[in-house]
């Protein structure tokens, strides 16, 4: 019993570690400016996890293999070793705290930035409005201002481009809203910061772009700001990552990252 158990424990550890190390099961390719830092942090964490996981399983398997009951023999009576405990606890504690602290640097850059290297002065501002079960995106247009919206004006029935009040309930009496562009695809120029304001019309949703390593809840009643810079052109999927009702699994939109020229063209075409 001890031999098979030890072998199974070791095999499970080797297979599991192998699966995580296998390139096929790495994080998907990412195209945002901050993802390198996140991926690096994950790699370090995975190494720490891997070491902890394999060492403990190696030790467990070894103990199971070696210390089986033999006739007449007594176990060692050791009931503790304060020194070993303290050393192991200290190593673990320092490792964990170091991980926590290095992780915070990436977080701070993303969420708490005020200083360079990321400047949001040049950013494209987009409002993301989530609803059951679709995404809406609003650009402020030439005047750079978002028009006033009113929940009592929401009209989902006409979501054509330029519709007023449209699904976002844009108040036509507010001149700032006349040039707002409302779409169901998030179009962004490459290599330029995009500043998103997340809102929701009904329940909590979550704006999740796997390719950007970007995820943030959109909470009704709140306006939450996040930002990203896409580094490669292409079409990427946007998903909802907070249970929002029965079609939570079908809430897809696209992020279209275009060259700056294509982006300007698109904006002009849809802004009329």
């Amino acid at each position: 019993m001890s031999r098979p158990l030890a072998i199974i424990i070791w095999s499970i550890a080797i297979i599991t570690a192998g699966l995580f190390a296998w390139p096929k099961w790495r994080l998907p390719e990412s195209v945002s400016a901050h993802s390198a830092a996140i991926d690096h942090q994950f790699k370090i964490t995975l190494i720490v996890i891997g070491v902890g996981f394999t060492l403990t399983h190696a030790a467990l398997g070894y103990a199971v293999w070696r210390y089986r009951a033999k006739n007449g023999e007594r176990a060692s009576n050791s009931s503790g070793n304060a020194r070993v405990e303290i050393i192991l606890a200290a190593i673990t504690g320092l490792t964990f705290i170091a991980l926590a602290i290095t992780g915070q640097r990436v977080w701070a850059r993303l969420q708490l930035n005020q200083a360079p290297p990321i400047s949001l002065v040049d950013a494209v501002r987009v409002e993301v409005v989530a609803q059951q079960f679709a995404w809406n995106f609003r650009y402020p247009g030439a005047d750079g201002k978002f028009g006033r919206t009113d929940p009592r004006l929401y009209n989902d029935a006409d979501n054509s481009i330029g519709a007023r009040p449209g699904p976002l309930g844009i108040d036509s009496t507010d001149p700032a809203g006349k040039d707002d562009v409302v779409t169901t695809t998030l179009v962004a120029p490459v290599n330029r910061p995009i500043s998103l304001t997340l809102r929701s019309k009904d329940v909590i949703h979550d704006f999740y772009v796997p390719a950007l390593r970007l995820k943030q809840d959109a909470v009704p009643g709140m306006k939450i700001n996040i930002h990203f810079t896409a580094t490669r052109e292409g079409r990427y999927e946007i998903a909802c990552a907070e249970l929002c009702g029965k079609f939570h699994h079908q809430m897809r939109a696209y992020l279209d990252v275009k060259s700056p020229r294509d982006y300007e063209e698109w904006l002009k075409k849809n802004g009329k």
Partner: protein
Amino acid sequence: MFSKLSVIAFSLLLFSVFGYGCRKQEETSAPIGPLWKPSGNEGNITGVINFTGAVPAPSKLDMSSDSKCEGENFLDDVVVKNGKLQNVFVFVKSGLPQAAFETPADAVTLDQNGCKYVPRVLGVQAGQPLKIVNSDQTNHNIHPLPQVNREFDDSQLAGQGPIIRKFRRPEAIFRVKCNQHSWMRAHIAVLAHPFFATSDSNGAFTIKGLPPGEYEIEAWHEKYGAKTAKVKVAEKADAKADFTFDGSVAYRPGSLKLQPAMMTP
């Protein structure tokens, strides 16, 4: 002694909770008279809905949230052809004899086709089956929003067969929405009698089988509100009742309080 108390308390707890859970009972309205039978001398009301003024430019709906919605979809709340308005719901508002009208067994069909409801406006009789069909390759969700009848919210997956539902009480026109495709709209009216019709692409409607008498009929459009008219139906004859809706009335922005009030007998 204490065990007895526990049994009683526990049962009370269970009963009250179950009672709470079962509290929403569907009530059916009592019939208002003897069953009406046609006597052979009925007439009809026919008419045309005219439209004057500028037709709003068609808006192309954005269906990109679901790549399985095929084709193009234009907002079809106002459909005008040669000055005739489609999708106006016409019904008899008053003047009918005090009687109960037989509930038809055959269903009225509401189809989800091209990610749009066909027809956009329809009427059913209280208790008449409504057959909801999904002709698309995508998942739909049928969610009517009645005030009086029981609301239901059912997904209808691609490849799933029809859903049959009934509305048990007469009710003014209410909206139907699809939870998945927020632009989809339909309107349903539930009446106690079978005397209603929807104007077709030529603006024409016919309400058949009315006993001779004086009636008030109402024509309702989701954007332009309701108009009424008095009609006298003679024995075995067609009474004419035309309506005109004016499109030059300022296009009202959509709002949640859009539905004009509509009374049904």
